[in-house]
């Protein structure tokens, strides 16, 4: 085994004097200081705003740009008529390493769809944001592209998202009792509570139809922030 002898560089005379090196260091910091100070003053006068005086993002007011593949809070994509795309196949619940997804399936009025989630809860206090649920979904029904990072709550219960919040990222906790003015075009039972909503808005009075009145679109609704 070859031994490589690393010699430390000897300091030159001017380096041993300290003072020239200290002045060189002061030159660097002073250059930054006076440049940024001048820019701060110019900014306060509304000048030179295209030059930045600091690398800081003033976070809550000025969010950082996120990468396109960044995994943020989940959402459930919806069909054109406003019902969830999810067909309650349980793949995400099965693959989830943190076991934070709870799905209760119900029978969809449209026999071509077969199933839909009556309940779809994600406990964000448990979620590890691995993104497996997004990868595994055959229907593109769950995504992690809301751009919401600041999930914070005062209790563990408030960290649990129900189907309402997942379908509409604009809804944020606290939601109250969810009996509010939320209108859902399908039947659901958020967080294991009583059944709410019905299908009549889409399928009329007859629940079991052989043919869906609306074609199933493959595109998702845009995110509302």
């Amino acid at each position, binding site marked *: 085994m070859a031994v490589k002898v690393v010699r430390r560089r000897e300091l030159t005379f001017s380096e041993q004097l300290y003072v020239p090196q200290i002045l060189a260091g*002061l030159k660097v910091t002073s250059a930054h*200081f006076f440049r940024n100070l001048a820019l701060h003053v110019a900014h306060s006068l509304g000048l030179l705003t295209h030059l930045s005086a*600091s690398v800081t993002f003033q976070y809550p007011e000025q969010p950082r740009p996120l990468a396109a593949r960044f995994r943020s809070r989940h959402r459930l994509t919806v069909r054109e008529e406003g019902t969830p795309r999810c067909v309650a196949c349980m793949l995400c619940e099965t693959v989830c390493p943190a076991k934070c997804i709870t799905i209760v399936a119900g029978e969809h009025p449209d026999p071509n769809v077969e199933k839909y989630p009556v309940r779809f809860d994600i406990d964000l206090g448990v979620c590890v944001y691995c993104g497996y649920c997004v990868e595994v979904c055959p229907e593109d029904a769950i995504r992690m592209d809301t751009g919401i990072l600041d999930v914070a709550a005062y209790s563990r219960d408030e960290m649990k998202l129900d189907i309402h919040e997942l379908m509409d990222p604009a809804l944020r906790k606290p939601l109250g009792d969810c009996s509010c003015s939320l209108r859902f075009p399908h039947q659901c039972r958020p967080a294991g509570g009583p059944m709410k909503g019905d299908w009549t808005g889409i399928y009329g009075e007859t629940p079991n139809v052989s043919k869906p009145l609306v074609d199933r679109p493959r595109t998702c609704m845009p995110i509302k922030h």
Partner: protein
Amino acid sequence: MITDLAIKLVLAGIVFFGVLNLAGLHTWIERKQSAIIQDRIGANRASILGFRLMGLFHPLADAVKMFTKEDIIPAGADRVLHTLAPVFSVFFALVAFAAIPFGDRLLLGDRVIELQVAKIDVGLLYIFAMLSLGVYGVILAGFASRSNYAVMGGLRATAQMISYEIALGIAIIGIVMVYGTMDLQELVRGQGRHLGGWLPLWGIVVQPVAFFVFLTAALAETKRVPFDLPEGESEIIGYFVEYSGMKFGMFFLTDFLETIMVACLATTLFFGGWQVPYLTPNGFQFPWGSTLPISHWAYVFFGIASFSTKVLVFCWLFMQLRWTLPRFRYDQLMRLGWLGLFPISVANLLITGVLLALFTEGF
């Protein structure tokens, strides 16, 4: 008698008000200056009624926090000395300012007021005595905490301060030899002459080597970066490790007070104190012959403004150095003090003496 007392009280009030406010502002300067150097913005969130004033309320918030924090005295510690140590530190740092002249004499009616809290004939010795007594605060803090780490920190700090005091003192002797006085007011007056009619005969001109030695040793004396290893706030445990609340805050305040003290000393000894180049009590007398007479009040104002500006520039320079240099290792620190600064200051003293003996009429 009563008027004399009142005048002295007013002068002391002015100095204390200015110095303590500047020390409080130093926390803000430290944060903001470091932020601007490092391309950041710095603390700017504390607000009163929505006004943020560039983070100027942060020192206020700090003070409120310091005063309301729990004050812990470790079990088994000497309660009296533990409480006394920060008081010692702040007291001796504050009283040293009494001898600093911040302006020329003010003529008020038939009364002559020296703009200096206490006119002491050996003002320089007084200031150095007070600064040396500050060491007691440090070693008492380490000793009274009943913590081995604090004792080690205190010993380290004491060794550093005493080592650098020697170089500091010897560097100053050169200045005293040149101007022939230890009265700081007279020392500043002595710097009012001009060499060849145009170069102000400030301390930096006649004693440039002493200035660098003084600056380095004084930085070490105040325990600021790059010599801050007595404190080493979070990395190396220092002498005030067992302190909390406002007692800790007082050690911090001492730090800033000593920084201002060093800035005042550097200004007074090496940069002409309240002198403005070409300004005499009668007005400006420029080297090219023209004169510009100004009133007495304007003259005094110029003097105070000149002194304050120089002190602020030095404070800025110390901050800039603090955010430029890395910390010394302990052996490097001792080597610099004893093998670097000490011989240089002694050589400077000898050369000054020889030159003075040869050209006594030169100055």
